[in-house]
């Protein structure tokens, strides 16, 4: 901890208008470095755990003989509500420090929390999405500890009666990690508020407090200790992120800290029913980091077990260090921290009605698991299924393409192939491009009907993605209609054979591979428009006939 702690913020001048507080406070010092530009990662598809873990997995598998890891995850999901959980301040990631604050989220004397109803709605949505029981009556509690980023000296949270509990999440492990369907238990989902941020000076001689984030609503999701490998844990996290994004309750961005996973890992000999001593790991800002951190930690613990040093595994919090790819002790826990929870007297109980829950349930979108099962039933491969359902925008694009009558497999191929490649190169999201699902379905139909070739389609697609328009207009504009007239093709074939007597001679001498050459020449002459099927048929006949 950087010390001594200076007064990070001063009491700003606040103006009151329409019951809302606003502040005109300027940043305290120029060297705040927290103002990262707004990242566009939100629109990027969730990163798969792929490249990360293959190596780690192999290492882990080699070393796990005789031992089994038990992994549970606490996930904090920041909600993208317009205002904070208990006051009317907005929250925008990357704002100037201490500009979105008011007496309530600064913990000023006399200020009181007022619950943002939207937070409850998000909690119920997520609770339902995770197949939880929703508590018709829940309440808030105070979790008490001192830290400079916690203005009131307590965090408003939920202790013994969370808003949702006893659920589960279903997911599919990608084939490259062994595949398979998993169900992981959800212990509970509860509402709470975020703390501010400490900004430590480079010299380490002082720290400053930024309270912009203080009071931002969070949902904490606690899993059952059901995961056994880093991959499973990472896939669990990725599924939570998908659900959060599908529901639109948060942006799920790990780099911004909108989705944070704290992982508990313990190891025990296979067959033993008691858990080993658990270690908490923090500071992982990608799913691949989660996977690697866990696999590292498992290896570390197993090694200690094998060397009969299991007593060196102690209850502690360890930090994942990306540069060394290792976990390090952050703090040892001296017994259980006593947060002295008690019911928050400033907030009434949260009482829900069945109508309220039913209304939310009926407005829920199709969730990733349901989508995957639906795609699977269409006959798509698991790889396609997982890809398409990974990002709700992609899935939505795919679904509407099908609604316009496109063939599922072909639509999947185009989306996963050329479109995905374009998006990756241009760092765009599928809703940033001009291609519409309708035109994709038109294009697929045009291929099927023989109006254009697959090759021409690739050309058209780039046009549609970057400039928009319709398949028809692009075909006409570029004169790309496939030549399906046998006489026209025959004429072109004849011309090519006449123009290349040397090659024809070689062909006749037995170099039959040259058929490809002739085909290419004809295609070139037709500017790619000749129907490949007809072309090959006519060319074949001509070459054979000439023999």
């Amino acid at each position, binding site marked *: 901890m950087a010390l001594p702690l200076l007064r990070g913020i001063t009491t700003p001048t*606040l103006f009151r208008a329409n019951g809302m507080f606003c502040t005109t406070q300027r940043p305290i010092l120029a060297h705040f470095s927290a103002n990262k530009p707004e990242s566009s990662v939100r629109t990027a598809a969730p990163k798969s755990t792929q490249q990360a873990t293959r190596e780690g997995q192999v290492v882990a598998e080699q070393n796990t003989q005789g031992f089994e890891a038990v992994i549970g995850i606490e996930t904090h999901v920041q909600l993208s509500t317009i205002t904070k959980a208990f006051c009317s301040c907005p929250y925008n990631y990357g704002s100037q420090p201490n500009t979105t604050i008011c007496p309530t989220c600064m913990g000023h004397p006399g200020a009181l929390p007022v619950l943002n109803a939207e937070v409850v709605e998000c909690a119920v949505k997520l609770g339902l999405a995770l197949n939880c029981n929703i508590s018709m009556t829940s309440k808030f509690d105070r979790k008490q500890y001192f830290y400079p980023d916690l203005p009131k000296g307590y965090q408003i949270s939920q202790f013994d009666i969370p808003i949702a509990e006893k659920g589960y999440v279903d997911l599919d492990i990608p084939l490259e990690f062994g595949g398979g369907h998993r169900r992981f238990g959800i212990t509970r989902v509860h509402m709470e508020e975020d703390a501010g941020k400490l900004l430590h000076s480079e010299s380490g001689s002082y720290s400053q407090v930024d309270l912009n984030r203080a009071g931002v609503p969070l949902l904490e999701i606690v899993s059952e200790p059901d995961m056994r490998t880093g991959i499973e844990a990472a896939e669990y996290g990725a599924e939570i992120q998908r659900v959060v994004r599908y529901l639109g309750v948060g942006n799920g961005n790990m780099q911004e800290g909108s989705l944070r996973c704290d992982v508990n890992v313990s190891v025990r000999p296979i067959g033993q029913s008691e858990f080993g001593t658990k270690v908490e790991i923090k500071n992982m800002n990608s799913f691949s980091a989660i996977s690697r951190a866990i696999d590292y930690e498992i290896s570390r613990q197993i090694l200690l077990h094998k060397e009969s040093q299991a007593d060196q595994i102690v209850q502690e919090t360890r930090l994942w260090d990306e540069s060394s790819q290792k976990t390090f002790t952050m703090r040892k826990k001296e017994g259980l921290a006593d947060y002295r929870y*008690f019911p928050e007297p400033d907030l*009434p109980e949260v009482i829900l009605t069945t109508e309220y829950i039913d209304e939310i349930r009926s407005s829920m979108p199709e969730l990733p698991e349901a989508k995957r099962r639906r795609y699977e039933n269409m006959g798509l491969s698991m790889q396609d299924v997982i890809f398409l359902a990974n990002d709700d925008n992609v899935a939505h694009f795919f679904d509407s393409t099908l609604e316009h009558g496109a063939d599922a497999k072909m639509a999947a191929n185009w989306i996963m192939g050329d479109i995905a490649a374009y998006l990756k190169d241009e760092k765009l999201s599928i809703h940033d491009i001009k291609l519409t699902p309708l035109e994709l379905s038109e294009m697929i139909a045009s291929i099927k009907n023989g109006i254009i070739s697959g090759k021409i389609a690739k050309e058209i697609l780039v046009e549609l993605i970057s400039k928009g328009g319709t398949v028809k207009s692009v075909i006409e504009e570029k004169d790309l209609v496939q030549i399906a007239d046998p006489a026209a093709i025959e004429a072109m074939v004849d011309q090519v054979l006449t123009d290349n007597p040397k090659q024809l001679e070689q062909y006749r001498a037995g170099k039959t591979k040259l058929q490809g050459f002739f085909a290419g020449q004809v295609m070139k002459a037709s500017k790619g428009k000749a129907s490949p099927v007809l072309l090959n048929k006519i060319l074949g006949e001509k070459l054979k006939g000439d023999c």
Partner: protein
Amino acid sequence: MPPPLQAHRMLLSHRRISSGPRRRFTAVSSLSSAPAKTVVAPGPAPSSILSIRESLLSGERTAVDITSEYLSRLRRTEPSVRSFIHVADAAAEREAEELDRRIASGGKDAVGPLAGVLVGVKDNLCTAAMPSTGGSRILDGFQPAYDATAVRRLREAGAIVVGKTNLDEFGMGSTTEGSGFQVTTNPWDDSCVPGGSSGGSASAVSARQCVVSLGSDTGGSVRQPASFCGVVGLKPTYGRVSRFGLMAYASSLDVVGCFGSSVFDTATMLSVIAGHDKMDSTSSSNDVPDYRSDLVSPNLLESKPLNNVRIGIIQETLGEGVDTGVISSVKAAASHLEQLGSVVEEVTLPSFSLGLPAYYILASSEASSNLSRYDGIRYGKQVPADELNELYGDSRANGLGHEVKMRILMGTYALSAGYYDAYYKRAQQVRTLVKKSFEEALKRYDVLISPAAPSAAYKIGEKTNDPLAMYAGDIMTVNVNLAGLPALVVPCGFVEGGSAGLPVGLQMIGSPFSEGNLLRIGHIFEQTLQDLSFVPPLLADI
């Protein structure tokens, strides 16, 4: 059914006290010729707010006249009473001038119900234009960014905030000796405490330094000082008045209350400050009646105005440990109520004695949490340190007073793992019992009565080394907070002490949101109380 009280004997004792050859009558009679015009002759307490309003509207006096009258009295009495931590005299004069300009320019319609009324505000209520310390050194010099809702509503009704009144630090105490700044004295006897924690607000109204004042009541902090200082004090139903801007002591018990020299003034104030506030989720959205409308002028009262009113006198409040003078004053008040037509019966509340320990556990538990924000990080006093825990420790050790630290320690202990069930949870169960026993009793009676405190004002320093004795003094009031009920304290008599006797208050407790009924009965009681005047001798000497 307990036997009815012996009305005749009670009435006699009542009269005996009130007609004794006490100096207060000379005091009062000399007052009538005193220049302080709003301090009036013996007899039913008049409404200062009404007379201010009438004189402003008739043009008889200006707001500047009225303000300077109060301010000059404040300046003369303050050196001995020390009610205020902060006096905003210049701002008050400025506001009065502006009000006069508005009245002169014909804006009489724009004159609010509290126009020209000088209000004292307990210093644990936030005020944007003045320091607000909560009586704590840790907030020395702290100026909030906003007005508490109650203060804002008073200002919007035209009231002029004259200053911030003294209190026990963060409301924790029963004498106002626990202030981090000064000791307030009782206007009836400057060697006595004014009660607490709203001691400054009570003494300020008693000494007519302001017309009315705001206090807060967590376990009796409005009612007990009202009793000690001989003024009217109202603790509204929990949730009736917004707590937004009240520095939290025990959030589930805290209520903003008011003081006046008459029931009418108190009712007027409540009408202004009560009502839902979206900034306080525990504030009630029940309609706010005009609490003045049921207050009938004494000459229009019928002979038995309290016919059909059933009153229970709580037996547990008239036993051991209660000053005999207090008991006889309250019994006299009971028979006075009977004379007015009500039926008074003894009632027992079996869980009454359990309330005090439960209260101190719950209040301390919540306090230990509520006071965590005074950490020296964002505002208030910070003691520089080399290490974070030291910074917290030194800032709090220096900034917080003895009683506050004791309660934080008690509360922290009660909420600790392993003790929670034995203390906090148990105390909550007791709270439920207390609530139920009140509910039962209030099914049978419209109003329950008791003393507001077991004794009249005691000497400064008398209980400073004996916190348990001080806590025991809250026995009459804490149960009402546990049950969240409204209670009104009206001066009803005197006991021996000081130069003119020391006042005793009668506490009337009602069902939730029955403030209107309490004020109506309190008003009739007050207006029919013959020959008693609750103007302190301090004012006679001026």
